[in-house]
C-alpha cells in the first residue's frame, strides 16, 4: 500500500511537471507570428484554409494584392482544440514548413524515424552496459593493483574527452582513414541487414564508450564500498569462499544502486544523442528535431519537445521508483 501511494505520488508529480512544460511550450509557440507565408508553388488560400481547419485562425478574408487577413483564435481555445485532437484522434497535426515531409501526418513521420534512433541506442546499451559493469567489477576486485589503475586511467580519459571529440575521432580513424565503415549511416529502411548494421557500428561505438565509462566508474565505486562492509567479513568467516561471498553478497548489494540506472538507460534509448545523430547522419528523431527547429515547423517542434521532455522525465522517475522495488531495506522499512 505504501509503495502504491509512493508510486502514484511520484507519477502524479511527473505528469504535473510534464503538463506545465508542455503548456508553457504551447503558449510560447502560439505567441509567435503564425507562419502564413506560403511556400513557393502552394496556393495561399489553401494555406489559410488549412490553418483555419486546424483551429489556429478564424474569419479569413482576402484583401487586395493577394494579402490575406484573419483573426487569431484565443490561445486557450487553441490549446483545448489541440489537446482534444491528440486525445481523441491521436492527431498531432501536419507538416507545414518542413519541406521534405510537407503535408504529411506528423505522428507518422515521427514514428517512421524512431527505429534508427532506438536501434542504435539499444545496440550501444547492450554492448556498453556489460563491458562497463565488467570493467567496474574487475577494478573493484583488484583495487589499487595495476588492473585497477589501467581501468581508472581509461575511465578518466573517457569521461574527460567530450563525446563530440570521441565521435569525430572514431569517424576519422575508422570510417575515413581505415575505411572499415561508411562515413554516415545508410538511409535504407532494411534495418536488419548486415550493410545497415555495419553502417550503424561507428555511431554505436561512439555512444557506448560514454556508457562504458559511466558504468565502470559507478560500479567500481559502489562495489569497492560494499566490499569493505563488515557483513562481507562475516560471510567469509561463515566459510563462504571469496567468489561466493562476492557473488551472493557484494554484487547483489551494489546492484541495488546500479540496476535502476540501467533501467533508466533503456528508457532513454528512445531519445538518443543529438550530437551523435548529426555526426553520423543518422536518419532518426534527432535529425527531425534539429530540422523542425530550423524550418520553424511549430507543430512538429511541439510533438518532439513533448517527446524529449517525457522521455527524460520518465527515465528520472524510473530510477526513483525502482529503488523502492529493488532495495529490500526500503521495501521492508515501509511496512
Amino acid at each position: 500500500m505504501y509503495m502504491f501511494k509512493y508510486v502514484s505520488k511520484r507519477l502524479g508529480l511527473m505528469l504535473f511537471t510534464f503538463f506545465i512544460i508542455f503548456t508553457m511550450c504551447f503558449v510560447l509557440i502560439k505567441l509567435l507570428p503564425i507562419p502564413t507565408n506560403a511556400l513557393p508553388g502552394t496556393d495561399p488560400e489553401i494555406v489559410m484554409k488549412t490553418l483555419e481547419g486546424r483551429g489556429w485562425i478564424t474569419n479569413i478574408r482576402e484583401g487586395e494584392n493577394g494579402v490575406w487577413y484573419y483573426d487569431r483564435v484565443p490561445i486557450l481555445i487553441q490549446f483545448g482544440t489541440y489537446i482534444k485532437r491528440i486525445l481523441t484522434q491521436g492527431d498531432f497535426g501536419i507538416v507545414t514548413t518542413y519541406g521534405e515531409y510537407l503535408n504529411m501526418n506528423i505522428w507518422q513521420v515521427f514514428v517512421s524515424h524512431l527505429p534508427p534512433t532506438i536501434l542504435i541506442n539499444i545496440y550501444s546499451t547492450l554492448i556498453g552496459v556489460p563491458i562497463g559493469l565488467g570493467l567496474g567489477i574487475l577494478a573493484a576486485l583488484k583495487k589499487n593493483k595495476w588492473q585497477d589503475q589501467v581501468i581508472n586511467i581509461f575511465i578518466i580519459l573517457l569521461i574527460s574527452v567530450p563525446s563530440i571529440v570521441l565521435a569525430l575521432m572514431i569517424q576519422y580513424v575508422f570510417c575515413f582513414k581505415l575505411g572499415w565503415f561508411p562515413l554516415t549511416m545508410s538511409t535504407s529502411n532494411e534495418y536488419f541487414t548486415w550493410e545497415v548494421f555495419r553502417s550503424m557500428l561507428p555511431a554505436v561505438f561512439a555512444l557506448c564508450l560514454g556508457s562504458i565509462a559511466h558504468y565502470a566508474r559507478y560500479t567500481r565505486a559502489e562495489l569497492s564500498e560494499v566490499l569493505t562492509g563488515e557483513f562481507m567479513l562475516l560471510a567469509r568467516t561463515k566459510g563462504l569462499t571469496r567468489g561466493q561471498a562476492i557473488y551472493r553478497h557484494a554484487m547483489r548489494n551494489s546492484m541495488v544502486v546500479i540496476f535502476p540506472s540501467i533501467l533508466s538507460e533503456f528508457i532513454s534509448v528512445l531519445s538518443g544523442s543529438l550530437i551523435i545523430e548529426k555526426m553520423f547522419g543518422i536518419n532518426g528523431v534527432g535529425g527531425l528535431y534539429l530540422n523542425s527547429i530550423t524550418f520553424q515547423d511549430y507543430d512538429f517542434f511541439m510533438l518532439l519537445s513533448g517527446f524529449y521532455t517525457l522521455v527524460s522525465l520518465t527515465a528520472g522517475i524510473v530510477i526513483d521508483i525502482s529503488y523502492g522495488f529493488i532495495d529490500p531495506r526500503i521495501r521492508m522499512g515501509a511496512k
Partner: protein
Amino acid sequence: MDNINNIPAEKFRFSQRNDLYHDSKFETKPVSYFQGAFRRFRKNKGAVVGGVVIAVLVLFAILAPFFTPFTPAYYDMVYAYVTPKTNLFANSSIDFWDGCRNKETNKIGYLKDLALALETGREVIKDGEYTVSEDGSTYSYRYDTYYGVGFGKYKIISPEEFNDIQRYQNETGRQVLYPVVKVADRPTLEKNKYDANIYYKVENPNVATLRPKLDANGEIIPNYWKYEAGDTNSLIAEYNSLRIEGENGIEEDGKQYFYAYGRRVDGGIEVRAEYYEYYIYQHNEVKKDGIEEPLFLFGTTQTGKDIFACLAYGARFSFIFATVVAIANFIVGVIWGSISGYFGGKIDLFMERFAEILGAIPTIIVITLLKYHMGTASQVLVLFIAFFLTGWIGMAGRTRMQFYRFKNQEYVLAARTLGARDVRIMFKHIFPNGLGTIVTSFALVIPGMIYSETSFTYLGIINLEAGNTTSVGTLIAAGQQSIMANAGYVALFPCMFLVLMMLSFNLFGNGLRDAFNPSLRGTED
C-alpha cells in the same frame, strides 16, 4: 570529612608550588581552513598540472586575439584548406608544420606542379624531391598548399590597380604579374579557359584533362603572348615594370620580342597575378589590415578562415561567457539555496518544486523558444538567458544541502540565542562554512558550460558567426565536413583545445574538491 562543602579557603594549597602547569604555547603557526586547503591542493600533482594548463589556455584566449591580425570575419576562398605553417619549420627539412601536404598524383599532376614551380621559382614541390612508384604511374611528394595555389584564375583588375602594382613591383622588386597567354592559344573548354596556371603549350587544348607538351629535352614549352618591340597592339596594356624575360626582351630570329603582361578587356585589364605575391600586395598596400603574408599557423578551413584566429576568439568567448554565466548562476543559486535551505518547511517545499519543474525543461527547448522570440538579433543573449534560466538550479541545490548540514549545529543555535538575525546567521555563520564545497562546484560548472555551448553551436542551433565571433563548436562542425577533403587538421586544433580544457578542468576541480573537503577524498572516482 562530613563538612566537605564548607572547607575554608585558606586550607587549600598548591600541591606543587614550584611547578605550575601552564598550557604551553603552540610552536607551529595556526593554519586557517583556506591555507590548509591550499596546502592539500599543492600536494595533488594532477590538480596543479590541470591548473597550469587552464592558465595557459586562458592566457591563449586572452592574448592570442591581440597577436594575430586575422579575425573570425576574415576569409579568403583562394586559400581554403591550406595546411598549418609556421616559419620555424617552413624552411627546415622536417616534413611537419611546413604548410605542405603529402600529394600522390599521376605524371600530369606532377608536371603541372613542376611547371608552376619553374615559372615562379617557388618550392611548390618541397625541395624539388619526389618519389615515383615502380610502374611510374604515381608520383608522391610534399606539396606546398600556399604556393600550389599559383595564379588561380585570370584576374580582371582596374587600370589604376594595374599601374599601382607596377609601382609596387618597381619599389620592392617583387614579381606579382606574370605574362599572359593569348586568348587564341588558351585551352578551349570552359573549365580550363580561365585557369591562369596553364601558361605552357598543351598537347590537345580541346580536352578536359590537359597534358603539357614537352620539347625534345622533356621541358615545358612556355606559351606566352609575345609581341615584337615597337609593335603596338591596342589589346596589350602598357607595362613598364619587372619582366621575367629580361629588360631587353628575348631575341628570336634577329628580332626583339616582349611578353604581354596584361590584356585589355571590358572593365579593366586581365592579368595573371601570382596569388601569394598578390595577397601580400593587397594586404600591405591596399587593405593595410596588418596582415603581412599568408601564414596560417593552424591552417584554414573550407571557406578560407584562419583557424588560429577563430579558435582564439572562440576560446575567449567561451571563457568569458562561461565565467559570466557561472557568476550569475552562483549569485542567484546561493541566494535561492540559502533561503530554501535555511527556512525549510513549506518555503523549501515550494521552492524545490519550482526548481524541479524548471530544471526538467530541456535546455534545447529553452534555447529554441528564446531564439524564435528574440529573432536572430543577439544569439549571445539567447545563449546567456537559456543557460542562466536553468543553470542556477544545481548551485541552489548544493547551497541548500550545505545549509541543511550546518543550520542545526550548536554554534548556529548559540548565535541565534545571542540574538543574531537570520541574514547574519545565514551569511556570517553558515555560508562561510559551506563555501569550500560551493566554490569547488563553481570550478566544475565552467567546463560543463563550455561543453554545452560547444554542443549547441556544433548542432547549429546557435550561430555566433553573425556577431563577428565564433565558437569552438562551429569550428568542430567545419572540421567534420573537412574530413572528406582529407583535411584532418581543421578539426584537430579545436578538438585538442576542448579535450585539454575538459581534462584539466576535471583534474583541477577534483583537486579543489579534495582539498576543501578532505573527508570526501577519492569517493567519487
